[in-house]
């Protein structure tokens, strides 16, 4: 046990030592601490302990590393996913306000039903778009469009998919998002491995299409 000047003023100064070590005290307080340190050897010894703690804390935190690569891309993906709503709101003006007011009046149960119905409509539209715009048929059966294959896969996610699920999905299939979202909420992705042959790409798309809990639409970019 150390015998020491424990007057309220000295205790107040000692309480400021951590902030003095971090350099975050106001000038006036920093000057008070400096003056006390110059006159008091025990306070100086305690200040040395504080500096040790600071150094250890910095080292401990620095050792925690950083978020994995791709964190910014995933964030921007989520922001992009929110943008169409904003654009629509700007474009529709008063209509959007009216709609928001009507939605606000709905009970949670009615709102859930409306959201479900809207999701079903989106799925139907996506299916129709996929049928008419992505593929075409000729006498030889299924055929790719005239533009050469880019090696990219267009993917639309279900509205309920969150960022963690999408990230996990992309990791599972070793896909990287290269563009999007395009109209209809499609993201263009590319396999991280070397460009896949046609059969490999088609096989990959078929497997992705099985992930119906997260993917509402997937097709090779033509």
């Amino acid at each position, binding site marked *: 046990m*150390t015998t020491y000047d424990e007057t309220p003023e000295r205790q107040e100064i000692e*309480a*400021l030592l*951590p*902030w003095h*070590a*971090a*350099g*975050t*005290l*106001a000038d006036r307080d920093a000057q008070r601490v400096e003056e006390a340190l110059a006159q008091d050897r025990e306070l100086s*010894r*305690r200040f040395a*302990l*504080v500096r*040790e*703690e*600071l*150094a*250890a*804390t*910095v*080292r*401990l*935190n620095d*050792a*925690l590393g*950083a*978020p*994995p690569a791709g*964190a*910014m891309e*995933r*964030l*921007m993906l*989520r*922001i992009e996913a*929110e943008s169409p709503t*904003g654009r629509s709101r700007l474009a529709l003006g008063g209509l959007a306000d009216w709609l928001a007011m009507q939605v606000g009046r709905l009970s949670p149960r009615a709102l859930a039903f409306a959201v479900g119905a809207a999701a079903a409509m989106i799925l139907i539209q996506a299916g129709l778009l996929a049928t008419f715009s992505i593929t075409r048929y000729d006498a030889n059966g299924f055929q790719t469009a005239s533009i050469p294959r880019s090696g990219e896969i267009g993917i639309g996610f279900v509205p309920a998919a969150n*960022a*963690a699920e999408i990230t996990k999905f992309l990791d599972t299939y070793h896909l990287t998002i290269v563009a999007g979202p395009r109209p209809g909420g499609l993201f263009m992705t590319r396999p991280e491995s070397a460009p896949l042959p046609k059969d490999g790409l088609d096989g990959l798309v078929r497997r992705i299409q099985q992930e119906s809990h997260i993917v509402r639409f997937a097709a090779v970019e033509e």
Partner: protein
Amino acid sequence: MVATNSMNRTSAAMQTTSDEALIERIAAGDKLAMQVLFARHQVRVYRFVLRLVRDQSVAEELVGEVFLDVWRQAGRFEARSTASTWLLAIARYKALSALRRRTDQGLDDDKAATLEDPGDSPEVAVLKKNKGEVLRQCLTALTPEHREIIDLVYYHEKSVEEVAQIVGIGENTVKTRMFYARKRLSELLKAAGIDRGWP
């Protein structure tokens, strides 16, 4: 080429823009400003959250949530605090919410243990006469409340007022909590064989 040069100039200018100006731009829908703010603060936010939740995948997810909130709420930022203080306050709220959810689901002790014990135990470190290692071990053994305040003061360089804003307590309580966190740290060190002669 002209467009690329123009974008590069814009990006370079953004690097020197203050956080508060970036948030103003973000409120106006500027995604480049969002990227600059993210690049500037993501590591510190990640480490702050990781020290609280002790789970890397949860921390990664929460960092995304924090910056998504910034995107959504940038218009409400009133610059009464610094941007980093605002970010840490959002991060803290999200981390505590995640911890509450996890407590409800039952803690994953194995996962927590892997983060809590990256090196030798304090006793082994003492035997090796590695005081710095013992200190770090004891810092990780503090309660989340004590870890938080020590990190905010020492690592995030937050003033008394800023810690009060982030944690939502009075300034005197900030000082008292810091004192007790340091006192507990000394007790842990003493138990590990290092008597600092304080308090």
